[in-house]
Each structure stands twice: as C-alpha cells, then as structure tokens.
C-alpha cells in the first residue's frame, strides 16, 4: 500500500530505444538498410538492430555466431567515442532543469520530478518540452519515449510501452491496470528465470504479481521477490543523482606469485562472487571496474574494465576479465590484484529469442513468414488455383509468396 508521501513522488523515465544502433545509424545512414550488429571491445555483440534480432542475433554472442544466425549481417565495431558523445549530450539535455538525473546506461535515464509536478496535467507540458529539447539536440532518429509514474519501474515500463516521440503518463490509480497487461520480459530477471516463468504460463506482470509471494521467493530468490514487488507497482528506489557505489576495494593476493592466467582468474572470480550475488539480488550489474596489478619485480599497472551494459553474470565477467588480462603486459609474476567497483547500474531487460512476446491472438501465416522472408528471401509460397485441368503445371495454379498475401 502506498502512503500519501509515496504518491507525491514523480519519476520521469526517458528512454531512447536501441540507443547504440540508432546512434551508429545517425553517423552512417546507409547502415539502416541491412541487419546491423555492433561489436564491443571484447569482440562480442553489444547492440543489435531490430532486423538482426528477428534473424536470431543476440547480445553477447561472438561475431561468428552472429553471422551464423544472420548471413546478411552487417557487423561493425562500436564507435564508443561517438556514442559516448551522444550520451553526454543526451544527459546534458536532461540535466537542463537542474533536477536529479540518474543515468542507467545508454539512452535510459530517470529524472526526479518530486516537488515539481504531481499530476499528469502538470507533467505533460514538462514532458513535451523535454521531448522537443531532446529532438533538437539529438535529431529525430534518437527521439525518446517518455514514461511517468511514482515509481522507477512503472515509469520505465511506461517509457518502454510508449513509441519513440510519445509519452505514457501513469496515474497512481491506473498503475495496477497498466502493469497487469505488460509482458513479463520487462522484468530484468535472469534469462533462465524468465524462461521458467514462460513455461509456467506466466506471460504478464499481472499474472506474476498474483503469484504467492513466498512461492516466488522460494523459486526465484531475492531477485524474484524484488521483481514481484515491482510487478505490483511497489518500487521505492529513489532517483540517485550519481549512481555511487559503496562497495570497498578488494585486494586479491596471488600466492604464490604467478605469470599464468588461470590461477589469477580463479582468485579474481572467487573474490567477485559475493558482489555478483548481491547484485543479482538487486537486479543490478557492474558497469565499470578498476583493476590495479602488482608484480613481483615491483612494477605496478592498472586498467579499467567497461561494460556497455551492466553485467552480473559470472560467465560474462570471466570472458571480459580474460580478455583484459590477456591484453595486459605482464612484466613479471603477479603478486596481487586490487579491484574497485567504479559504477553499477540496473541490468537491462534480457533479450529472449526463444519466446516471442505473448501474442493476444494467433499469429497469421504472413506474420510468421515475414521475418523468415526478410532473412532468406521469398521461400514460402501459397498456391492459388486458376485452372485445375490445365496440362501445364504453371498454368494450373500460380504461386504467390506468403508475406505479400498477408
């Protein structure tokens, strides 16, 4: 139950869908015509265009796997400087009101409207003004969708529901009704948990919210419990101006000192486990990690590990660390590594390719064939008989490709 104090809180979520792809296409307009995926520094896919996603390309896969899924894929390295510049311009435009702004990664940010606007009537002109300002700053290709509510999760769900250039303002009285119809995939649960929910027939936030809380806790742990509260419209996280972390630096002693990667990785990963467990419970992830290395010959060096999207999966962290440590010059045996958590963020909503979003009706043949036809060309044909007794097969009937029929 929300108190009157809670009701007074207003959070505006500003969301630019597929920010990295849209940003890349702004620089190279020709890229919009083909399925596009961007590769990060760890040589894994970090952003996927809608056409590539339909072909089965997923975030975090290697370039080769992405090409296997989509032979026509246009793979390009992520231009981090250009994207960063756009993100800075985006945040600067959001910060013009001098209200607390919390950046949650590429194209996603919350603005605390507490004390400024408490009703849709008051928020609407502000949101319109913000939308215009962002369009002026970033151009039409990067125009945001805006969502407003008294909690972060509902505001984000509203922003993701709205089309780019539109806004969805959810009044307190409408929160339950709005969330009930939203897909379960809006929750940043881990992919295995989301799959379990799909298998259990839980497709919407409304269905998830109605499950017994203890059962959800038992099956999905702390993250599941938190996710259910969000699905019920209860999210009391404040907007933090700077996503500061209070996790203390951790020094990992390598005993005996070694120049071999394997024991260093094992020690590092073991030391990261408690942090990752905590983050998984909060549905947060690491965005930036500083690593300081001490070598047996007295040499010291350091590096920063940046994740394009917050990550809390050990396998992803391991792959990135492996790549980072492999690229690092080792002047001698390593005696210790100190890591410091520099930035964290909300885990982005998982991309599930195995399950499509729950459809309200059975998809037509054309709907099913269209994405396949986009990938493979015209491969599905439907016969239309014109003269059943004609001696030539091509004049007995004609074949029309299915997507164009629908």
């Amino acid at each position, binding site marked *: 139950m929300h108190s009157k104090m809670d009701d007074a809180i207003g959070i505006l979520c500003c969301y630019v869908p597929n920010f990295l792809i849209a940003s890349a296409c702004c620089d190279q307009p020709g890229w919009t015509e083909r399925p596009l995926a961007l590769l990060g520094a760890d040589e894994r896919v970090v952003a996927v265009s809608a056409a590539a996603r339909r072909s089965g390309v997923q975030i975090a896969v290697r370039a080769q796997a992405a090409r296997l899924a989509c032979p026509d894929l246009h793979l390009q390295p992520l231009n981090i400087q250009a994207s960063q510049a756009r993100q800075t311009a985006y945040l600067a435009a959001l910060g013009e009101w001098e209200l607390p702004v919390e950046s949650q990664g590429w194209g996603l940010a919350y603005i605390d409207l507490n004390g400024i606007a408490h009703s849709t009537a008051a928020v609407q002109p502000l949101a319109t003004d913000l939308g215009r300002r962002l369009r002026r700053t970033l151009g039409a290709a990067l125009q945001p969708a805006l969502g407003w509510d008294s909690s972060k999760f509902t505001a984000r769900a509203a922003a993701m529901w709205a089309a780019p250039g539109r806004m969805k303002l959810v009044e307190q009285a409408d929160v339950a009704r709005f969330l009930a119809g939203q897909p379960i995939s809006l929750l940043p649960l881990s992919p295995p948990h989301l799959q379990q929910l799909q298998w259990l027939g839980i497709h919407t936030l409304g269905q998830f919210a109605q499950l017994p809380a203890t059962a959800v806790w038992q099956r999905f742990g702390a993250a599941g419990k938190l996710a259910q509260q969000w699905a019920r419209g209860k999210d009391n996280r404040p907007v933090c101006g700077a996503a500061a972390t209070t996790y203390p630096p951790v020094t990992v002693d390598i005993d005996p000192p070694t120049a071999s990667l394997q024991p260093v990785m094992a020690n590092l990963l073991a030391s990261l486990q408690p942090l990752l467990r905590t983050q998984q419970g909060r549905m947060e992830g690491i965005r930036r990690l500083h690593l300081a290395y001490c070598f047996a010959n007295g040499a010291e060096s350091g590096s920063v590990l940046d994740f394009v999207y917050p990550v809390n999966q050990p396998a992803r962290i391991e792959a990135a660390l492996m790549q980072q440590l492999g690229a690092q010059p080792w002047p001698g045996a390593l005696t210790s590594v100190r890591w410091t958590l520099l930035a964290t963020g909300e885990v982005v909503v998982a991309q599930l390719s195995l399950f499509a979003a729950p459809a309200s009706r059975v998809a037509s043949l054309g709907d099913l064939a269209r994405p396949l036809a986009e990938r493979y060309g*015209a*491969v599905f*044909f439907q016969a239309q008989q014109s003269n059943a007794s*004609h*001696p*030539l*097969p*091509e*004049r007995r009937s004609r*074949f029309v490709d299915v997507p164009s029929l629908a």
Partner: protein
Amino acid sequence: MPAIRCRNGAAGLSMSRLWLEGEAITVHLDEQGRPTAFTWCKRLHRLLQVQQRWQVDVDWWSTAGRARREYLAVTTVDGLFCVIYQDLVSREWRLAKVYD
C-alpha cells in the same frame, strides 16, 4: 522461382521437386536427335530409359502465350526419375520435375 517441394503418396512422406518455370538444362542428343544425357547443376546425367513421352500444344489464344512442348519422363543411370521437356518454339530444354 525456386523449386517447390510437393508431397506425394498416401503417407505424404516422399517429396518431389517441381520447377514451375522449368530449370534450364543442357541435353545431349545422338545422331537421330534422341536425348542421351542432360547436364543439370554442372553434373552429367546419362539417360537409362525414356519411360513415356507426350506433347502439349495449348493456349494459342492466351495472353500468357502459346505452349508447345514435348515432355519426356526419363530415368537416369544415377537413379533419377524426372520429367524434362523441350520448348518446341524456343528449342530450349528444361527440367520440370524430379521425383524423390
């Protein structure tokens, strides 16, 4: 237009490939002008036997054009059973169907 796979038989398990517009092939003839082999997909298929032959001459009035063809149902040494035809207007040979 790519090949269209058609189900055959009561069980519907076997599939045949049908090219509606015909797949262009090169046919090798003997001195009497009888087909002895054809090349399809860069592979030579020697004819074992001509099982059946028939002619079609239709649609002289149609906007789709007159169709005047000689069809041959043939078996090949390498085990294909297929229908080939010669367009008697353009003199081109085409593969119409391969039974699997």
